[in-house]
């Protein structure tokens, strides 16, 4: 609680650091934020061609681009959280060495700054929803708690990996690889129903399953998320956050000596 209060007093710093990240990423770039549109659009196009047209993956009766985008969006939010949060301490070493502020400010600001791209992707997704005339139901509001759980999980993991990354830079490299594997262990390009029944119990221990599946169902099918799956995700997210926070706080003051 005390940490949260202190973090609140540093909200302007978080805002300014996030804005810095956004500004810097668009400086000296001719197309600027157009890239944030082109990249997810191309990914969806490629996935559709490869997995729907060529490999003929089923998609629960939903048009495949919509089906895969509906999962890719929450997934991208997760990879962005990890991708921006983990290296944020090392890349801001000069600040850590010179000035005091609560160190969570750095991963938090990086994640917020990087999430703009996700927001732009979301805008394309909305365009796609309108194009395919998807009927929304009140269940759409489930995406709010789902995204909150996802953030808690991603932030906790980013705190943990970010801390280890201060000691061993290998983590940044390994994370990229881990996320690639992780994507295939999450129902993004294929439906959950394609996972063989006998592996299902093990498969759903991946907290991203409940999150991605819940998000896609709430938006595209207009149905309530599977509470059993989401329950597993929530429990693991809380656990992940507590572990990440604990490790981060325990090591926070050693960063300056090893970074």
């Amino acid at each position, binding site marked *: 609680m005390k940490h949260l209060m202190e973090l609140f007093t540093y909200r302007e710093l978080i*805002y300014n650091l996030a804005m810095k990240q956004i500004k810097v990423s668009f400086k000296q770039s001719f197309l600027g934020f157009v890239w944030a549109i082109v990249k997810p659009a191309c990914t969806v196009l490629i996935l559709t061609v490869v997995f729907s047209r060529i490999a003929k993956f089923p998609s629960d009766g939903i048009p495949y681009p919509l089906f895969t985008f509906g999962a890719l969006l929450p997934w991208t939010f997760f990879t962005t959280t990890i991708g921006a949060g983990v290296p944020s301490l090392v890349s801001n070493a000069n600040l850590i*060495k*010179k*000035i*005091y502020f609560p160190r969570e400010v750095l991963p938090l600001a990086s994640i917020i700054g990087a999430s703009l791209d996700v927001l732009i992707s979301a805008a394309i997704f909305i365009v796609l929803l309108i194009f395919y005339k998807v009927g929304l139901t009140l269940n759409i509001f489930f995406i709010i708690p789902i995204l909150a759980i996802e953030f808690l999980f991603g932030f906790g993991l980013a705190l943990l990996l970010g801390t280890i990354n201060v000691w061993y830079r290998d983590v940044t490299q390994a994370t990229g690889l881990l996320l690639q594997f992780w994507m295939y262990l999450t129902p993004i390009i294929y439906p959950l129903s394609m996972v063989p029944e006998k592996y299902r119990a093990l498969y759903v221990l991946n907290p991203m399953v409940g999150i991605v599946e819940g998000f896609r169902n709430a938006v595209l099918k207009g149905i309530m998320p599977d509470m059993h799956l989401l329950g597993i995700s929530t429990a693991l997210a809380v656990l992940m956050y507590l572990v990440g926070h604990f490790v981060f706080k325990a090591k926070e*003051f050693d960063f300056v*000596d090893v970074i």
Partner: protein
Amino acid sequence: MSIIEVNNVTKEYRLGQLKSLKHTLMKAFDRLHGKEVEKLKPFKALDSVDFKVEPGEVVGIIGTNGAGKSTLLKILSRISVPTKGNIKVKGSVAPLIEVGAGLVGDLTGRENVYLNGSILGLSRAQIDKKFDEIVAFAELEQFIDTPIKRYSSGMQVRLGFSIATSVDADILIVDEVLAVGDLAFQRKCFDRMEELIKNRGKTVLIVGHNIRQLERICSRMMLLDKGKIILDGEPVAICNKFYNMTNEKVEEKLSHEIGNIIGHGSSGEIEVNDIVFFEGDNNTPTQDLEIYESLRIGVYFKTNVDVQGIEVVIGIHTSDFVFITKTSSAMTPHRLNFPKGKHYLECNLPNTPLGPGVYAIGMSFFDQYRRPMWYGENLKTLRIATSKIDMTKMPASGLVYLPFDWYFPSLVKNERTTIPPSS
């Protein structure tokens, strides 16, 4: 009520390089199996440091490289935590640990003012209010909307300094920031620091190597050595002790080179064998001289070839290489032709007006075309003492004490008082 309390603070670092993940895991594995694991030796950057600072004090922290000065400032500004002991700080702290930390090249000057201001703990409203002042002080009005990677390094540093010193805090922590930018800006920085300190009554801790500047603005000084505070007190006294200590080290080094003095450059035609000092008419060499006594500098040298029309220059500098004076044999009517062999020369300075402290001799030989044949600095040290002069009546600082005349016509007619009193 002390504003800063440092209680028995020790900071240890582990020496050696952090090895790979594999190395760490193997060691953890060995430890689990009860094997002996070689431990890295801790290095004490600070060793049981204990002091208090009262509000309004301006404390300068000096010491040789690696004495623990920056570690101490880092602990005081909460960047680092002590291994043992604790600190208590009452009031807000503005850490000027290094000017320009966190400036971003791709952002404009304006954007950087806001970003850096918030890094240093200023709110948006506060920066809005101070914005014009910050820009004006940095003299960057024209360039404030240009990305700062297009700035010269001096301009970046000016911006950094200007933002950093606009922070309002009870305690300022400064590390080597006084000398930034060109000479004119350095002057401005120094004035700003003095203004912050003297007019606004802030408590300040400064670490620096420019000891003369520190001596001027500090009300108290601490000398750190190998992580311990070995001296703490009034600036002039501490500085002099520091010079003496630095000097003893230099002397130690020099005393290993008995018989020949090693210059910094030599063409081989001339060697300097010894430099000696005499006080007045006394012919016993000494390294201690009373202020206003005459100083004779004797030089034993050897020419390896016949030399024609050479010039000898002798200079005096402080132990931190502030040059005070030089004299050249070219000002004498003599033409200096030395045949190959050993020679001696003497140079006399009557009424030596050097203030108390430690000085050293620099010397060079030139041939008739002013090509250097031999030169060196810090060749031999000289201590000036002031047992004859009442120091309580002397100004506390300054390098040379010139013989001024004082004249008070309405009090004493036709009588001048000369300092020193002519005996």
